[in-house]
């Protein structure tokens, strides 16, 4: 306890960074495992914290228990909305892709989905919105209470995987590694790869957020954090196999068991690790959520602060990223 004041007032002597023991957080896993964050942070101590799900991470950020965290787009939007734009900023992208709809055999076309039960991780999250938006485009109705042409059942990924394996649901729109697991273990069929629904096949799965106060008070520490993050993303790009191994090692350390190689490989294939937060997809997804009534209108203007990132990218001679909407 009390780390809040210490880190805020003590000149950023510690950085408390949150992430999930999950393959979509690979840059964090590798950065921690390989000491890349610590390297760039120098004498600022890295204090990594892991979370099981977005809400807990946001609660921790709100309460001042962490300073920055890797997180999915959805909790970030919620956190932005409830704090009325005062709590956090997205400062870099991390992961793209790696989600889709897996169905059981016998369902071959979207039309076959009528009357079926499809799981999503959580009402109003990215995958849930993607599914509903896609269903709407395909002329299906689906309400928030699981009714309509297609019954959308929000439940946590582990339950969805079990339910699918036991034939209790007909499909699930899930992120990695569950996406690969459903295909490899439960012999599900990938009906929709979410990539195909987005321009350039790019949509945000994970990004890096930081507490606004922290950003204001310790811009240097944030810069160093970004350096570490960039190094990690670079590392994945340059050492494919090594990076996988490092990620899996860190997973094993955090969860007691590594992913099976085949799932690790498949998941890595589906994911892209990038510094670009793919802002356009965030705006679009939020708009979709508002369209299907899962999000109160929210002004996302200013949710990004990509200046420090771009500064670094520029220094490294890489293309800068933008927080503009696609259109």
């Amino acid at each position, binding site marked *: 306890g009390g780390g809040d004041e210490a880190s805020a007032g003590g000149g950023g002597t510690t950085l408390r960074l949150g992430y999930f023991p999950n393959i979509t957080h690979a840059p964090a896993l590798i950065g921690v495992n390989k000491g890349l964050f610590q390297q760039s942070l120098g004498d600022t101590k890295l204090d990594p914290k892991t979370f099981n799900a977005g809400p807990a991470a946001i609660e921790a950020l*709100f309460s*001042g228990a962490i300073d920055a965290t890797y997180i999915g787009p959805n909790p970030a939007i919620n956190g932005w909305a409830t*704090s009325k734009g005062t709590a956090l900023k997205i400062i870099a992208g991390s992961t793209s892709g790696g989600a889709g709809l897996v169905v059981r055999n016998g369902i071959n076309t979207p039309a076959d989905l009528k009357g079926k039960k499809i799981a999503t991780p959580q*009402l109003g999250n990215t995958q849930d919105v993607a599914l509903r938006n896609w269903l709407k485009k395909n002329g299906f109705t689906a309400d928030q*209470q*699981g009714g309509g042409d297609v019954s959308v*059942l*929000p*439940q946590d990924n582990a339950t969805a995987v079990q*339910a699918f394996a036991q034939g209790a649901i007909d499909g699930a729109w899930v992120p990695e590694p569950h996406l690969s697991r459903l295909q490899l273990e439960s012999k599900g069929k990938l009906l929709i790869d979410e990539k195909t629904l987005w321009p350039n096949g790019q949509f945000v799965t994970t990004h890096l957020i930081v507490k606004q106060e922290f950003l204001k008070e310790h811009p240097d520490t944030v810069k160093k954090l970004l350096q570490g993050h960039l190094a990690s993303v670079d590392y994945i790009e340059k050492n494919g196999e090594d990076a996988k191994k490092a990620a899996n090692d860190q997973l094993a350390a955090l969860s007691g068991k590594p992913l099976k190689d085949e799932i690790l490989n498949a998941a890595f294939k589906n994911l892209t690790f990038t510094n670009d937060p793919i802002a356009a997809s965030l705006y679009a997804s939020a708009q979709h959520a508002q369209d299907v009534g899962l999000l109160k209108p929210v002004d996302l203007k200013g949710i990004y602060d990509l200046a420090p990132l771009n500064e670094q990218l520029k220094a490294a001679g890489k293309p800068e990223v933008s927080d503009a909407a696609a259109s």
Partner: protein
Amino acid sequence: MPTDVKDDAADRLSGLDALELSPARERDLGRRLWRATWPKLLAVGIVIAAWQLVVLSEWKPEYVLPGPATVFGDLATLVTTGDFWEGVRLTMLRAVTGFALAVLIGTVVGAAVSRFAPLRAAIGSLITGLQTMPSIMWFPLAILLFQISESAIMFVVVIGAAPSVANGLISGIDYVPRTWLRVGQVLGMTGFARYRHLILPASLPSFISGLKQGWAFSWRSLMAGELLVIVPGALSVGVRMQQARDLSESSLVISFIIVVLVIGILIDMLFNAADNALRKRWGLTGT
């Protein structure tokens, strides 16, 4: 407790004058209600005042720790939607059904376990083992047995609460005074009659306390179990609660904490009424 004894004696004294009996009683009822209410009001008042003070001190921003005004505003909005009551109805229905089932099964298992020594040796300790199992660990089995259905929820609730009920009963049975058991034997009680006329009534206090704990377990299991199934039509309390957290809306989270507390308190009052009636019968109160 001495205080009670004194008060009741005073009540009786005032009841001595037969002519004044009914007004005295009315006054008594009013006084008793007031005596039961003011501490509650005071407690709520203190909590809200402290809460408001913390909020005013700006220890944490409003979106992390919203003030009472915000929360009660949100709560008021919440409870004025028909949807919310639909959800509460659905959840209460599940809770009551699940609890009833748990009581039934727990009673039978508890009675059987305390009756047959080998059964007790075999599964007696397992009961506590089951109790400690987090609800989510039953999800795979629930889905395996019942697919995604109301029955799966019931399964999770029953397996969560029945051990508690059974344990309460077993403990009650174990502490039935030996004299009563001997009286029962002399009266020729055997088998079911022995349970019906001696063991169950004698262990009722502990049983009721087990029921209370069982209710808490079943409610907690239900909150987890409701996430298994979303039934078209109404969003149950468990689902709404999860959503409030997912949306990181502190005010809504606190609202649901209050809702759950209020339901818990109301149920506890039911149990207390049963308990008081029992204690009166047993001659454990001053009245």
